[in-house]
């Protein structure tokens, strides 16, 4: 079971374990899907196959699926395997509300850019919006900070490096 130190500060609890199981399952499903795609590629390549474009993907996705399976089994087998929780609670563990809103902001930012909104408009909007939401108030300071960051980006990327937005 994954046990990297960066997670020491959070307590898992039932919701956390449920979320963890869900994530491990997701990893397995993704691995299996990738393996399926690689298999399809393998079958559509003419021999010799060992040196074809499908060889490495096949090996690697097989390893992925195997490791994900072992991982899932390990998680279920360990002491954390027990305890069920509501789907919503597990989701909330995985994506705390603050983060969920930030992700929405990111999605909105990407959508704006995709729709063709000028970078110079979308970026300050995103910055100002997220900062205000996260800081709860301090609108003036955030405006200034937005200006500084945008100014920095424009200076370095547009002026110096000529990146065209």
């Amino acid at each position, binding site marked *: 079971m994954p046990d990297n130190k960066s997670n020491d500060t959070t307590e898992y609890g039932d919701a956390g374990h449920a979320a963890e199981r869900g994530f491990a399952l997701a990893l397995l499903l993704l691995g299996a899907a990738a393996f399926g795609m690689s298999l399809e590629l393998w079958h559509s390549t003419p021999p010799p196959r060992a040196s074809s474009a499908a060889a490495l993907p096949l090996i690697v996705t097989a390893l992925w699926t195997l490791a994900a399976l072992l991982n899932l089994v390990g998680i279920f087998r360990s002491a954390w395997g027990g305890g069920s929780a509501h789907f919503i609670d597990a989701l909330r563990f995985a994506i705390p509300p603050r983060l969920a809103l930030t992700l929405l902001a990111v999605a909105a930012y990407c959508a704006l850019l995709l729709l063709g909104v000028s970078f*110079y408009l979308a970026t300050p909007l995103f910055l100002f919006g997220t900062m205000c939401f996260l800081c709860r108030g301090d*609108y*003036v300071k955030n*405006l*200034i900070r937005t200006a500084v960051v945008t*100014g920095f980006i424009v200076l370095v990327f547009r002026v110096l490096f000529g990146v*065209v937005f």
Partner: protein
Amino acid sequence: MKILASAFCSCYNNIVYNVGKRGMRVKRVLAAAATVIFILSLAACGGNGASGAYPSRDINGIVQWGAGGGTDSLMRPLASLAEKSLGKSIVIKNMTGATGSIAAQYVSDAPADGYNLLMGAENPALYDVLDISALTYDDFDCVYLIGDETVGIAVGKDSPYTSFGELVAAASAAPGTLKISTTGVGGLPWEVGAFIKDVTGAEFLQVPYDSDASAKMAVLGGECDLTVCKVQSGLEDYRAGELRFLCMFSSAPVSAMPDVAPVTVEYPDFEKYLPWGPFYGVFVKKGTDAAVIDALSRAFSEAGQDAGYQDMLAGFNVNFLGLTGDDAANYIASWREGTVGALRNSGAIS
């Protein structure tokens, strides 16, 4: 001007921030308002408002291949020279990937207003037959064709073969045993391999590498038996005796390597495909206004004629052509016809 503006902005914001810390509310609001106005004005000037004669703003030069590569090295100096007659900057961007089709797609997606130039090599002429992209050079107008290069067949210094004929004979006796290092499907050695198969029937085992330099290294190190090398890539190794050129893919010897026989000496049938070689040019999307194309052609022609640039081309061993308009279009059309013909005859493509 923009640098000053941004620097001013940063200083101004620093002052504003400090003012803010001392808690003078009104001033803060005013400062914030001023900042917003500044950002909006930046957006306005950053935006592309085209009006007036061409060019009214900077032009993008999209290079198909990586920084430091053959195409890039020719385009950057040319662009800086052309900037002088155009009056606006040509900003070079390298957009690599998928044999240059990413760059081609980008220029094709952009409006046909002459502000996005495709700076490429010969590969786009074959995109459709290689199923790399639906685009070809038919979708672009050539503003300036710089020139082309001569290539030759090269082997390592320890190779037992002393002439192209011997190589062909050995390959014909045992097809697929001699290894040719290539730069992948659609690359230079692959194309020449097709020509060789069509005319002589010799077939080699193609081993792909990721660049000209790696393919050449493979032959130098002995991992492969032969490769197809541009004069520019192989000249120094030839002079040092590390690489031996068995023949040049041309009808006449090349001035930089006068001792290497042209391929037509042993196989006159190649004549129908020659002259042939990778070429480099500047293109715009088809449908661009004729006046714009004209302005670009004139600027680049002037740049190409520059003595310093000509010296550089000679240093790169590029055969200067300097074609524009119909001449360029005809060159590309006949290049494509010959190459596709050989590819079909040799079975490289169906």
